[in-house]
C-alpha cells in the first residue's frame, strides 16, 4: 500500500544544529501514527517539515504519491493537511467561529459578499456549532464567545474540531493532551478516535506513552533527528519504547515501514 504522506531523506539544519538528519517518514491511509521521541529529538521539526511550517534543506515529501513542496502551512492546508499545533494557533480575543474560519472565511452570496466582501456570519456560526456538536463539545456556552474564555480542554477541542472540519487528507496533532487534565485528555482521545473512524489518517505526537499506546496503530520512534524504528504498540511494551527512545536499547528489526 502506498503511504498517503511520505518523507524521504529529510534534512533540516538550524545553524550548527541538525534537527533532521536524513529522516524518513511514512503515514499509511486510515491509520493513527504515533510519533514519540526524547526532547530535542526533532519530532516537531519533522512534523513541521511535512506540514509546510518549515522548509526542509534536503529531501522530498510526497502526498498521495505526488511530490509536494509546501512553502507555508497555508499550502499544506490547501492540500488537505490540517495541523493542531501545541500552541493551538488560536487568537484568544476572537470568537470560536472566527477562529475556526480564520484564513478561509465564508463570504455572503450576491452583492454584499462580492462587492462589499461581507462575511456570512450566520453560515459560519452554524457550521462551527455543528462541528462542535458533532464532536460532542456541547458544553461550549456560546459560539461567539472569545476563545480566551474557554478552558484548556475546550480550546483543544475547538482546535481539533477545526482540523477535523477541514482536514480532508491528513490531520496532525502536536501534543494534544500535554496541557490537559485527565477528563479533558480522555475527551481529546475520543475525538481522535472519532476522526479516525471517518477514515482520515492522524499523526499524533506526544510525550504521554499511555495515550500514544492506547490510540496508535503504529508508532514512529524518533531519535537524534531520524527515524530509529517503527513499532507496533501491540507487540511492544512502553518500557521497550522508552528504551529505544533514550538509546538504552537497540531495536532488533524494523517492522515493515
Amino acid at each position, binding site marked *: 500500500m502506498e503511504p498517503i504522506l511520505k518523507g524521504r531523506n529529510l534534512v533540516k539544519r538550524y545553524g550548527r544544529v541538525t534537527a533532521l538528519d536524513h529522516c524518513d517518514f511514512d503515514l499509511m491511509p486510515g491509520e493513527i501514527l504515533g510519533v514519540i521521541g526524547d526532547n530535542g529529538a526533532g519530532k516537531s521539526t519533522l512534523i513541521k517539515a511535512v506540514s509546510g*511550517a518549515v522548509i526542509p534543506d534536503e529531501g522530498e515529501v510526497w502526498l498521495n504519491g505526488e511530490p509536494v513542496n509546501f512553502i507555508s*502551512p*497555508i499550502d499544506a*492546508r490547501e492540500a488537505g493537511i490540517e*495541523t493542531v*499545533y501545541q*500552541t*493551538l*494557533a*488560536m*487568537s*484568544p*480575543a*476572537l470568537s470560536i467561529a*472566527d*477562529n475556526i474560519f*480564520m*484564513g*478561509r*472565511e465564508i*463570504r455572503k452570496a450576491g452583492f454584499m459578499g462580492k462587492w*462589499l*466582501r*461581507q*462575511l456570512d*456570519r450566520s*453560515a459560519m456560526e*452554524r*457550521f462551527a*456549532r*455543528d462541528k*462542535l*456538536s*458533532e464532536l460532542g*463539545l*456541547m*458544553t*461550549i*456556552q*456560546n*459560539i*461567539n464567545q*472569545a476563545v*480566551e*474564555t474557554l*478552558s484548556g480542554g475546550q480550546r483543544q477541542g475547538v482546535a481539533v474540531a477545526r482540523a*477535523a*472540519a*477541514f*482536514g*480532508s487528507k491528513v490531520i496532525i496533532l502536536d501534543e494534544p493532551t500535554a496541557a490537559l487534565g485527565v477528563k479533558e485528555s480522555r475527551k481529546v482521545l475520543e475525538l481522535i478516535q472519532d476522526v479516525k473512524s*471517518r*477514515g*482520515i489518517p492522524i499523526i499524533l505526537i506526544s510525550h504521554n506513552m499511555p495515550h500514544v499506546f492506547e490510540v496508535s496503530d503504529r508508532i514512529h520512534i524518533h531519535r537524534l533527528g531520524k527515524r530509529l524504528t517503527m513499532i507496533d504498540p501491540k507487540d511492544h511494551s512502553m518500557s521497550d519504547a522508552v528504551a529505544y527512545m533514550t538509546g538504552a536499547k537497540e531495536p532488533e528489526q524494523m517492522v515493515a515501514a
Partner: protein
Amino acid sequence: MSDTSQNADKYEAAVSTSEQVAEFEDTHKGFVGQLQHILHVNPSFVPLIVLVSAIVIFGLLLGSKFFSPFALTLILQQVQIVGIVAAAQSIVILTAGIDLSVGAIMVFSSVIMGQFTFRYGIPVPIAIACGLAVGTAIGALNGWLVARVKLPPFIVTLGMWQIVLATNFLYSANETIRSQDIEKNAPLLQLFGSKFNVGGAVFTVGVVFMLCLIFVLAYVLRHTAWGRHVYAVGDDPEAAELSGVNVKKTLIQVYALAGLICAFAGWALIGRIGSVSPTSGQLANIESITAVVIGGISLFGGRGSILGTLFGALIVGVFTLGLRLLGADAQWTFLLIGILIIAAVATDQWIRKVSG
C-alpha cells in the same frame, strides 16, 4: 458525516440532519461579572458612557451655550483632523504596532498637494492624487520595515517621523502657501473645509469624511475577512500565521492604509486651516494616540473597536470646548485627559482579565 468533512461546501446538509447544537448555557456571574463580559464583547461601551456623561454634565452646567447644534457640531469640526488621523492610528495599534509618523505623513502630504499645485502648476486633482500616493508609499515603507525587516514599529515610525518631517521642511523650504492664494487658484484643496448648514448645525466636508471613514473602517474590521485578519495579527501573529493568515501582507496593507488615511487627513488639514503650512499639525501624533487609548483600543493589539476611537476623539473635543466655555484654565483639560488615559488603560487591563 464524513462527507461533510470531505467537502466543506456542502456543510449545510449537515445542519439539517443534526438536531442538537451546542447551546448557550447561562451562568450567573453577578453584576460585576456581567458588566465585565459586556465590556469584553463591546469594548467601545466605556468611552461611549464617558462621552454621553460628559455631554450631559457640560449640558447641565452650561445649558444651551453648550447644548446647541452649533456648539456640538463645532466639536466635530475641531476633532475632525485628530479623528481621521486617529482612525489610521487605530488600525495600526490593532496590529499591536504604533505609528509615530502619522502627523508627519499628514503634513508632508498636504505640503506635496500644495507645492505640486503652486510650484509646478500641476492640475489640482493630480497634485492631490500625488499627495495621497506619497502618503500611502511612506506608510507602505513603514509596513515593509515592520513586516519584512522585522524592526519594532516604534523604532521604524520614530525614525520615519524625523525623516518625513525633515523632508517636509527641506522640500517646502519652510514656506507657507497663503489661504487667499489657494482660495483663488485651487479651491479644490480646501474642499474639506466647505461648510453646510443643517438647522443650526454646521457640518464641513471634513467632518462628514471623518464619520464616513470611521463607519467604513468599522464595517471592514468587523464584517470582512481582512478585518478579522487585522485583529488576529494583533492578537497573536504566530497563531494567525499558522491558521492561514498572510501576516506580512496584512501588516504592510495596514501601514499603507494608515499612510493613505493620513494623506487624506493632510488634505482635510488644508480645508481646516485654509493654508498649506509645513509647521502645522505637530500634535497630531500624541493626540491621535490619546484618542485611540481613551477609545479603549488595547495598545497590546487585537482588542478594541474603531468606534471607540471616534468616541475617544469626541471626549477630548467635548472636554476642551466645555472647559473653555466654563472659563477654566486650559491646563484643566490636559489634567483631565491625563486621568482619562490612565483610567482607560486600567479598564482595558481589567477587561482583559477574563475568567469565563
